């Protein structure tokens, strides 16, 4: 694909050989973690054309993980979230346009149109539009006091509620829900967490990890309801209660909904790009159009380690995939096949995960859950799929090097085994 497009460019150059060479332009849609990284990687790969980055939000690219933790708790000023100083964009001639949402991609004309009606041509385009939270549509979902968490504005809106007292109902016991639960308890709020599944973190972690976090939150005074389905919210203007399908009513002053995120694919779909649980990309972060790339939460990619297509919502994935996209937009042929990793801080407990545990046929527990330092190793047919490490960065570091490789469950389960010996 890449060869063909290079040939087309050559033919074009030959045909219009007398004209001065045009400055090339790379456009990046989305000014998040992936967008910022791709801009930097384009420059690092020697791309000297124009780079224009469009962001929907008014902030320059910033870190999202603290939005449910330190930033929500008021321990971090907004400027400290910014991924790069403003001088970075000037020095690298990155034309960063915040508060400038894109309306359309025209692949035939190779242009992007903004919502305010500006049209700009691209040679290479990156779609890094992220994955906004799934929204509830039940009765009362539009009441004031029902919050979601993705942006600084969301976190800013939620923060005053944490110090207002009363009860917050959190819908969904995933990372966002549980991290906000921890932040809210720290702020002294009463917290009820509603989870439809029979355990927390069901989508991302194994049973041992779920059980550990259920106890952790209950020990911190969280009213955790498993197998609890929300029916609707009550209130006149402000939310006043969450009503379960069972009929039980839980009075509250605020609600945080954390029921997952959906990849933002509207622009790609309208441009008739291939979609497969997100914007489809190959191992080069290239979409079904050779001049268009995608990276981060919005994109799915083929994983050789897992022998299937993955779409990941994580900072390291956004960074690594954007590095590949940036290098390839500049003419490279880098391949993305990194093992994904994640982290989550709740109370004084750090969870570090490498890999994807789905499909495991064997799990090995190392360490002591009561001592709050342990790791769970997930294997499939003798191959290491993933590891969840709780307050155990050593296990995490070893796992990062072993994931995808064959591993022996017996020696992993043996407490005498020195993990370091497995990687040397």
């Amino acid at each position: 694909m890449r060869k063909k497009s290079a040939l087309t460019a050559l033919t074009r150059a030959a045909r219009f050989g007398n004209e001065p060479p045009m400055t090339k332009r790379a456009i990046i849609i989305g000014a998040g973690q992936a967008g910022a990284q791709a801009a930097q990687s384009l420059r690092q790969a020697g791309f000297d054309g124009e780079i224009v980055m469009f962001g929907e939000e008014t902030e320059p690219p910033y870190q999202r993980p603290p939005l449910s933790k330190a930033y929500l708790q008021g321990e971090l000023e907004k400027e400290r979230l910014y991924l790069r100083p403003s001088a970075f964009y000037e020095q690298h001639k990155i034309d960063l346009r915040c508060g400038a949402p894109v309306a359309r991609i025209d692949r035939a004309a190779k242009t992007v149109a903004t919502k305010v009606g500006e049209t700009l041509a691209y040679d290479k385009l990156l779609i890094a539009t992220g994955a906004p939270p799934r929204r509830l549509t039940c009765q009362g979902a539009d009441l004031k006091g029902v919050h979601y968490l993705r942006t600084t504005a969301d976190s800013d809106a939620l923060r005053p509620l944490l110090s207002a007292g009363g009860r917050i109902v959190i819908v969904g016991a995933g990372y966002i829900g549980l991290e906000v639960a921890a932040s809210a308890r720290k702020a002294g709020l009463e917290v009820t967490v509603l989870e439809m599944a029979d355990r927390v973190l069901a989508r991302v972690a194994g049973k041992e990890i779920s059980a550990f976090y259920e106890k952790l939150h209950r020990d911190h005074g969280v009213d955790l309801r498993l197998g609890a389905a929300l029916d609707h919210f009550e209130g006149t203007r402000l939310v006043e209660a969450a009503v379960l399908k069972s009929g039980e009513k839980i009075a509250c002053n605020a609600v945080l909904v954390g029921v997952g995120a959906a990849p933002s694919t509207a622009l790609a779909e309208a441009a008739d790009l291939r979609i497969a649980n997100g914007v489809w990309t190959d191992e080069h972060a290239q979409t079904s159009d050779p001049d268009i790339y995608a990276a981060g939460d919005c994109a799915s990619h083929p994983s050789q380690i897992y022998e299937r297509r993955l779409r990941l919502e994580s900072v390291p994935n956004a960074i690594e995939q954007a590095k590949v996209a940036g290098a390839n937009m500049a003419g490279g042929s880098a391949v993305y096949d990194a093992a994904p990793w994640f982290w989550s801080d709740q109370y004084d407990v750090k969870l570090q995960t490498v890999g994807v545990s789905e499909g495991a046929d064997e799990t090995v527990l190392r360490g002591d859950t009561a001592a709050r330092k342990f790791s769970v190793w997930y294997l499939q047919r003798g191959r290491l799929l993933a590891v969840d490490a709780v307050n155990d960065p050593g296990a995490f570091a070893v796992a990062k090097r072993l994931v995808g490789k064959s591993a022996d469950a017996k020696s992993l389960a043996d407490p005498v085994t020195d993990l370091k010996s497995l990687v040397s």
Partner: protein
Amino acid sequence: MPKITYIEHNGKEHVVEAEAGISVMEAAVKNMVPGIDADCGGACACATCHVYVDPAWSGKVGKPEAMEESMLDFAHEPKENSRLSCQITVKKELDGLVVRLPEFQG
């Protein structure tokens, strides 16, 4: 403001003025010092902001806590004076601090 000197693996020096209260990692990122990736943004989760503290400063900077220590164990070429720069807070006692960067992070 406290001055911090970062010395890249190739010997190139970067002297930056850092605001008290932020981390040595944040001061590097803010001043575009290359060689500190800080993928996790300072959550002590990734070990990509590894530095070697100049031995003259070891006492004032102090030792890593247990969590950081085990992260460092697996950094690229850890040494006695290794620290994660996201876990060192800039303060006026650290005015003049010198840290060296490893060949690569990871």
